[in-house]
C-alpha cells in the first residue's frame, strides 16, 4: 500500500478509508474515479494526487468551479498543492480529506477514561458528598429532624448525577458514545476543588489577617466552573479543545473584568466582599493584634480614598452643571 486516503466527517472522525495501491489517484463525482465522492460541490473529475519529482505527494485541482482548499488557502482549478507537513489535510468541495503515508508519526495511544479510573472518580464523588453532609450537620441545630437531611442526602447526589447525565447525553450526540464516567470524573473533581478553595481561602485570611485570599474566594465557583466546562467540552469535542479553552478563557476573563469594573463603579471596590467575616476560634488566633489606639489611627488610611471620591463627585457635578442631586 502506497498511502491511505481518509474521508473525514464534520465531527473529525474518519468516515471512509481508501487504500492507495497506485499513483495517480483521481477523485470526483464520476464513477470512473479511484475515489468516488458524493458531494454536489465537486466536479465529476475534481482532483488528482500523485508524487512530485522528489517523490512527495501533491494534489492537482482539475478543471471545475470550486477547486481545493487547505486551511485558509484556496487552490483554484489548474494549480497544484504540495501535501507537505505532518498533517496532510485538504478540502475538496465540502469534503475533508487526509492523506496518510507509511512511516507517518502517530499520536500516542489515549487511555480509556480519566487517569486513575473509576475508583478515583468515585472517591472524589464520595468526598464531595461527605463534605456536603458535614456542611449540613454544621448548619443544623442539634436534634434536627431526619427530613432536614434530605437536601444533602439525596439532593446533592441527584444534582451531580443530573449534571453528569446531561453531559453524557451531549457526548452521545457528538461522540456517539455515553462517556458517563469521564464526565462524572470532571464534575466530582471540580466540585471538590471548589469546596477546598472555599474552605482554604477564607481560613488563610482568618489565620494570617491578610484580607486578599478571602476576597478572592468570591471568584472561585466561577473560575473552577469555567475550567470544568472546558474539561467537559474536551470530552465531547476533543479536536476542538484548544478553541473551546480559548473561548471559555476569553469569556471568563471578560466576565471577571466586567464584574470587577461594575463593583468598582457601584461599590467603590474591586471585590464583592467588603470585609473578612470568618472568625477563628481562640486556639487559632495566630494573626498579630494591634492596640485599640493603633486600630483607630489606622482608619486614617481610608481618608485619601474618601476625599478623592468626594472631589470626583464635585467635579462630575460641575461638569453636568447639576445644582443638587438629593
Amino acid at each position: 500500500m502506497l498511502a491511505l486516503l481518509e474521508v473525514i466527517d464534520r465531527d473529525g472522525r474518519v468516515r471512509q478509508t481508501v487504500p492507495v495501491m497506485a499513483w495517480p489517484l483521481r477523485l470526483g463525482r464520476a464513477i470512473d474515479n479511484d475515489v468516488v465522492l458524493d458531494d454536489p460541490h465537486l466536479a465529476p473529475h475534481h482532483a488528482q494526487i500523485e508524487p512530485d519529482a522528489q517523490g512527495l505527494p501533491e494534489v492537482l485541482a482539475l478543471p471545475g468551479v470550486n477547486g481545493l482548499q487547505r486551511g485558509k488557502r484556496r487552490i483554484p482549478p489548474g494549480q497544484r498543492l504540495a501535501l507537505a507537513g505532518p498533517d496532510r489535510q485538504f478540502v475538496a468541495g465540502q469534503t475533508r480529506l487526509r492523506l496518510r503515508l507509511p512511516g507517518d508519526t502517530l499520536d500516542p495511544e489515549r487511555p480509556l477514561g480519566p487517569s486513575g479510573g473509576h475508583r478515583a472518580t468515585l472517591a472524589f464523588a464520595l468526598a464531595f458528598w461527605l463534605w456536603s453532609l458535614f456542611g449540613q450537620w454544621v448548619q443544623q441545630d442539634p436534634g434536627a429532624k431526619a427530613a432536614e437531611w434530605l437536601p444533602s442526602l439525596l439532593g446533592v447526589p441527584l444534582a451531580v448525577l443530573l449534571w453528569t447525565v446531561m453531559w453524557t447525553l451531549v457526548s452521545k450526540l457528538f461522540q456517539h458514545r455515553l462517556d458517563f464516567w469521564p464526565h462524572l470524573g470532571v464534575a466530582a473533581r471540580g466540585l471538590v476543588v471548589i469546596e477546598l478553595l472555599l474552605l482554604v481561602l477564607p481560613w488563610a485570611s482568618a489565620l494570617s489577617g491578610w484580607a486578599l485570599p478571602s476576597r478572592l474566594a468570591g471568584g472561585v465557583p466561577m473560575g473552577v466552573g469555567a475550567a470544568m466546562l472546558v474539561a467537559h467540552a474536551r470530552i465531547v469535542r476533543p479536536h476542538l479543545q484548544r478553541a473551546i479553552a480559548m473561548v471559555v478563557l476569553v469569556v471568563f476573563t471578560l466576565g471577571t473584568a466586567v464584574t470587577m469594573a461594575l463593583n468598582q463603579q457601584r461599590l467603590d471596590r474591586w471585590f464583592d466582599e467588603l470585609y473578612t467575616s470568618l472568625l477563628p476560634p481562640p486556639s487559632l488566633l495566630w494573626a498579630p493584634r494591634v492596640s485599640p489606639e493603633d486600630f483607630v489611627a489606622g482608619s486614617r488610611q481610608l481618608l485619601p480614598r474618601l476625599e478623592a471620591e468626594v472631589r470626583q463627585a464635585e467635579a462630575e457635578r460641575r461638569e453636568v452643571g447639576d445644582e443638587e442631586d438629593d
Partner: protein
Amino acid sequence: MGAATAAATGADSGDASQRVYARARDKLLQVRTLLRGQDSQASVGSGFLVSESGHLITNYHVVSQYALRPGQFRLTYTSADGRQGALQLLDVDVVHDLALLKLSDPQPLAGRGVLTFRPADEPMQRGERIHALGNPLDVGFAVMGGLFNGRVERNFLPTLFFGGSLSPGMSGGPALDDRGRVIGVNVAARRDGEQVSFLVPASFAEALLLRSRLAPPVEQPMHPRLAKQLLEHQDRLVAAFVAQPWRPAGHPRYRIPVPQEDFMRCWGSSNPAESRGLQFERSDCAMDSRVFVSPSLITGHLAVRHEAYDGRRLGALRFSDRYSRSFRNEQFGHASRQQTGPQCHERYVQGPGLPLRALMCLRAHKRLAGLHDVSLLVATLDGRDQGAQGRFDAYGVSVANAEKLAQHYLAGFGVVDAGPR
C-alpha cells in the same frame, strides 16, 4: 355633676380655640414649594408671621427642596383670606427643623400684626391647653386643640410633647397658648400612637429670627451652611455622649458597651429559652432625635447594638459557624449621590484582657463637607462557644469625632472584673 363639668370644660376649650384662631387667623399662612416654571406644588406646609416687616417661621423640612435646589423651585404663600405672594428664604436651623422666610412684598399683608413668643420666664405647665394651627393635608386652615405634656424624654434635641393631633401640611404652623402666644412650632407626630405629636420649642424660632432677620435671601444651595450647623450639632452630641460612662450589659463574662438612656432608647430581645440552637440576647439602642436634611438623608444621630451569644448547646464547631455568619450579616450602605460607599479598615485588636475582631467603616458626605458616617463592628474572640458582637453607628460626624467615638466604643469591651474601666 361630673358630666356637667366635662361639658363646661369642653365648651371652654372650644371657646378658647375659637378665640385663639380668630386672633391668629390673619397671621397664619400656607407655605408652598413650587417647581419653578410650572405651578405644581412639591411640598406644602404652614407658617406664621413674626415681624411687621414680613418675616415668617416654618419648618426647614417644608422648604428643604428650595434650600437645597433654589434654582429649581420657588416659594409662595397663601393666607387664610386667599391672598397669595412670593416668599424668600433667609436662613434655616436645620438641626431644630426651622426656617426663616420673608414676604417678597410685605404690602398685601401689611398691618395684620404678628404672633408673639411666650416669654421664657413663663414656662408651660403640664396639662395646659395648646392650640396647633395650620393647613392639614391642604384641605383648609384649621385649629387643633390639645394639651401640653412637657418635654419629650430621652431626646437629645429639646422637643415638646403635644397631646393632640398634627397632620401633614400643619408642619411649620404655630402652637399657641390660651393667650395666643407661640410656645412651639408644629413639627411631627407619631403614627404608631394616638395624639402623640411634637413641637419645636419657640425659643429656637425666636433665636433664628433674631440671628438672621437681616440676612440676604438664599439664592445658592445651602449645603455649606447646613454642614456648618450639622458640624456644630455633632460636636455637642459627641461631647455629651463620650462624657457618659457605659452602662453594664449584665453579661456574666463580658463587659459590653451599652449607652446611658439619657438621650437614647434601648430595646432588648432574646430567642426562646427552649431553642435547640444558638442562644442570644440582643440590645438595640437608638436616638429618636435625628436631623432631617432631605427625604433621603436623615443624619446627626447615634445607634449602639450588641448581641451576646451562648453556643454551649451547639458545641464549638457549630458555634464557630453561627458566630462567623452573624458577623458577616451586616450592611454598611452603598455609594449614593449624597454619600460615598463605605471604606473599611479591619484588624485583630487586643482589648483590655480580650482579643477582638474589629471593623471600622467610613462613608463621606459628598455635599456636606466634613461630615462622615462611621460604623464599628466588633466581635470578641476568646470563647470557643460563647462571644459577643457589637455594632456602633454614628451618622454625620467629623473624622476627629469618629475616632473619638471609636476609641470610646472599643474601650467599652472587656472582661468582667478584668482591666481598668
